């Protein structure tokens, strides 16, 4: 009986945390105004999201032991992220174009690449995350690393301009009328051996 109680307590705690993670994710979507719900719901959703994140200890200081314990458990169980895949809508696709400037004035265009399809899928997933606000602090570093991965294959290149672009896909009607995807540049960084600066 004691063992059953321990199992039941773990079950309750585990799914309580999962509920908080999942609801936090849904409330975040609503708070962003990305759903079909009226905008009056956004403020309530923001408060509800705070409640969900409080349950996960995220309102506590970064070094708080309870917060860290919960985070460790969530990661270990693979339940740190919600399940809102392709929700509420399918996000736009992003791509990274690298302009390679050679010493002799030549300009080549490249993209970071992987050998296998499985790794390429991960690379695409990374590029789709970068425009998100929460990745703003690491965006430049990631683009620099990606540029550097291409640079290693072209050591004679003196400067690289990395441009992250959003690819807007045509709707069904647009496609039927012969319209293709449109590209919108989002961020651009120049990297050289001497240093880098944002444009």
């Amino acid at each position, binding site marked *: 009986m004691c063992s059953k109680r321990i199992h039941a307590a773990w079950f309750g705690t585990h799914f309580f945390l999962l509920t908080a993670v999942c609801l936090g994710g849904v409330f975040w979507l609503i708070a962003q105004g990305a759903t079909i719900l009226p905008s009056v719901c956004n403020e309530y959703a923001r408060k509800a999201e705070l409640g969900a994140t409080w349950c996960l200890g995220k309102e506590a200081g970064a070094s708080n032991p309870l917060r860290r314990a919960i985070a460790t458990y969530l990661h270990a169980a693979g339940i740190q992220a919600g399940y809102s895949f392709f929700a509420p809508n399918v996000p736009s696709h992003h791509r990274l174009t690298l302009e390679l400037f050679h010493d002799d004035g030549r300009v080549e265009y490249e993209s970071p690449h992987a050998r296998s399809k499985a790794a390429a899928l991960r690379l695409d997933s990374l590029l789709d995350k970068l425009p998100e606000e929460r990745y703003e602090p690491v965006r430049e570093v990631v683009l620099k690393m990606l540029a550097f991965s291409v640079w290693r294959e072209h050591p004679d290149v003196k400067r690289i301009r990395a441009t992250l672009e959003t*690819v807007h896909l045509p709707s*069904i009607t647009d496609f039927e009328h012969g319209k293709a995807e449109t590209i919108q540049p989002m961020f651009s960084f120049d990297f050289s051996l001497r240093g880098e600066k944002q444009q």
Partner: protein
Amino acid sequence: MRLNPLHRAWQRFLGFLFPSESDMWLTVFRIGLGLQVTLYALFLRSDWHYLFASSGKGLVGRELGEAITSFDSPVIPKLGWLIAVGRNLNMSEETMLTVAWVGLLSAGCLLLLGLLSRPAAIVAWLVHLCAAESGGLLAYGADNFMTTALFYLMLSPLPDRYSFDHWVTKTKPKNPQALGFWRRVLQVQLCFVYFIGGVGKLLGNGWWDGSNLWRALIRPPFNLVPPDLLIRFKYALPLLGISICLIEVSYSIFIWIKKTRLIWLVCILAMHVAIGLLMGLYLFALVMIVMNVAAFGVPCTSKRAQGTSGRIE
């Protein structure tokens, strides 16, 4: 003896949590995850070092993902730990990454066979978790599901009757209620997954008019089906989009009802097969199929299990 309502509810809850089960579902779960881990390792074979090498050697550099993870908590396992251990043993980063990959592949193969089932499940969970956390920015949905599934497998009462372990060591059959508990955990987990996934989709206008399905299928790198072919089915897209949402949201109800279980299970499995084949998300599709079949696809309770009861070990 009359029980008060609270006590009765508690007993019913315990009855729900600890049904008697045979270990057939666990066999399916173990073999399925063994296949999943093996394929995961093989698919990433050529890029393993490229994805997880330190800065300046790989794609993005392992340190960045590990720094982001450490911000959440410094004790979340990561590949950097294994590499630090290797450094103390005078082994290079490259060697340790190879060891990690071989460990993962071996764990997958051992799970497939059911040899050293529990240690293999622990190694598979740990190495996969390290890889998922170190490559944090490169991870996607399939990684979370793999971590969750391996976490449950590692805690489940292994080995099962159809494993080599059982054949070699003649272990006693596991407690049916312990088997039932871990299957219940997997079942409830899936209900969460689909309910939240379905609600999230229902909140987007694109799932009501089919445009999200169109975008999902023409969006690189999932664009395996030519748009010209897809356009022929344009009138079916809204119906399919709404059906996906409704099947997901109602999964947590109809999967528990005996009469509707098979229908919902077939629909969900068909959806994952379609995701795998039409979008190229093979690992994601496989892990979801394995979890669904283990949770709801294997006949519920054996007579032998029903007739046995006992304490959770």
